[in-house]
């Protein structure tokens, strides 16, 4: 790796961090961090912004050492960007990053995160209607990150598959409660897995892991187009 002397001495087990993401000492703790303008009052040291896995599902996936396949510099389509907490970190270590968010209130904060990030493109659009942004988002993006808290999370992933390159990755955080609060999360997850892989223009699931250490009733899914 190229990080040389900046890397902290005790590197924990996982070293599959994308370039541009590091474990750094911040406020006396070793934490995931990316480099960029501060966005939401996160702790910072030497321009490195702490990336809190409790506030970010993608952060949790990386913290837990999932095989996310991120190397840094990818073109990313981020669905469910909300106020830009996670997507600001993604844009720090990625290439062009398209951030789709449906609700105007969080989009106001997303705008200020995008202000200082010239390759972060905020879009106030509905992730369930890709035709309303297909004229903006380029084809063959290398990564889709999805964190939308609506019903039909599998369908959103399937409908946005058209943007993903053949060898691209889907990093999906499924929130069980968004599908049905009364059902057992495991049943919800099984349905989502089933729906994702059901058809030939669906996904092949590479890895799944519960994020409960950081996010209750969430499942992380890493997949690629079938």
């Amino acid at each position, binding site marked *: 790796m190229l990080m040389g002397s900046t890397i902290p001495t005790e590197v924990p087990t996982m070293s599959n961090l994308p370039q541009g993401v590091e474990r750094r000492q911040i406020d006396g703790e070793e934490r995931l961090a990316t480099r960029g303008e501060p966005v939401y009052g996160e702790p910072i040291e030497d321009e490195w912004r702490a990336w809190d896995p409790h506030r970010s599902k993608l952060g949790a996936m990386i913290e837990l050492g999932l095989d996310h396949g991120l190397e840094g510099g990818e073109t990313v389509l981020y669905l469910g960007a909300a106020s830009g907490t996670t997507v600001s970190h993604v844009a720090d270590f990625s290439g*062009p990053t398209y951030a789709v968010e*449906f*609700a*105007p*209130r*969080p*989009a*106001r904060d*997303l*705008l200020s995160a*995008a*202000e200082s990030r*010239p*390759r*972060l*493109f*905020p*879009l*106030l659009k509905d992730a369930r209607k890709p*035709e*309303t942004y*297909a*004229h*903006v*988002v*380029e*084809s*063959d993006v290398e990564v889709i990150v999805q964190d939308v*808290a*609506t019903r039909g999370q599998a369908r959103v992933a399937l409908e946005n598959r*058209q*943007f993903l390159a053949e060898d691209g990755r889907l990093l999906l955080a499924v929130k069980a*409660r968004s599908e049905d*609060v*009364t059902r057992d999360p495991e049943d919800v997850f099984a349905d989502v897995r089933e729906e994702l892989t059901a058809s030939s223009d669906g996904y092949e699931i590479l890895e799944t892991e519960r994020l409960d250490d950081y996010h209750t009733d969430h499942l992380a899914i890493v997949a690629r187009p079938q």
Partner: protein
Amino acid sequence: MTTTAGWFAAVASDSDASDDALAATIREGAASESDSWPARAVDAGIVDDENEYYDLLHRATMAATRAAVTERERADDSQLIHAIRAMDDCQRTANELAERVAEWGGTLDPDAGTGIEYARALASDDPDPDETAVTSLAEQVVELEKEAERLGEYIEQTMPTVAPNLSALAGPVLGARLISLAGGLESLAKKPSGTVQVLGAEDALFAHLRGHAPSPKHGIIYMHDGVRRTPMENRGSAARALAGKLSIGARVDHYSGEYRPDLEAELTERLETIRARTGDEYNGGGEGSDAVADADGVDDTDGGADDE
């Protein structure tokens, strides 16, 4: 739509397109499928290279999102608060002046009626030369009444955008009243449901807290059919169930803004259950079906508002 043109097609001929024009292409455009837009923009001679493309795209998406957000915020909760308070002012003033008109009219015409009805009749009549003064006042009453109606229409149009869930659960006007009483959607979203339950019943609540009155079972949410149409003995439960759902609705509206039809269905079901037990002995219950609220992390406060 079967267009396969990129967002930049509309500005292709205009290299100095304004932010507004760029924003419009992002906001209004659509395409049946995506394409390698950066390469196509370079091929079309719109930009010299990818870097320039992404710079232009950043400008366009920032402008588009900023415009869309501003547009949606213009119809925000503070506008609603002004509207609902103005509507109440208009109605109260109209009623007050209508009383004056009736009193005055009674001295000129022994058959004078009362209230806004009478003011309306007087205003639509050909004015008697002796009665121009009172007729003119009656016309003002009618105008105020119309203004209140227009404000009501504005609220009905705006509420579903500002607070879709609250609007669906409570109805636009009651929803706006709750926002107004709480002082904003955000403060409503932060109140425990027990507080929402008695919003508008502050006098009764403080009388109770001073220790010489029973706790109020409901405040302004009494206006909701779900409470009003529930028989007395179960009204406290209905108010509690309704307040719980309204709090969830306000929170979803504030923090996510997404419309969730399932909330309405859950409320209807819950209210039916409560009404169905009328006549049965009070079973102390309903805790089981509050599991939905609990699972969402909502504190289901009793608010000290059960009977006795």
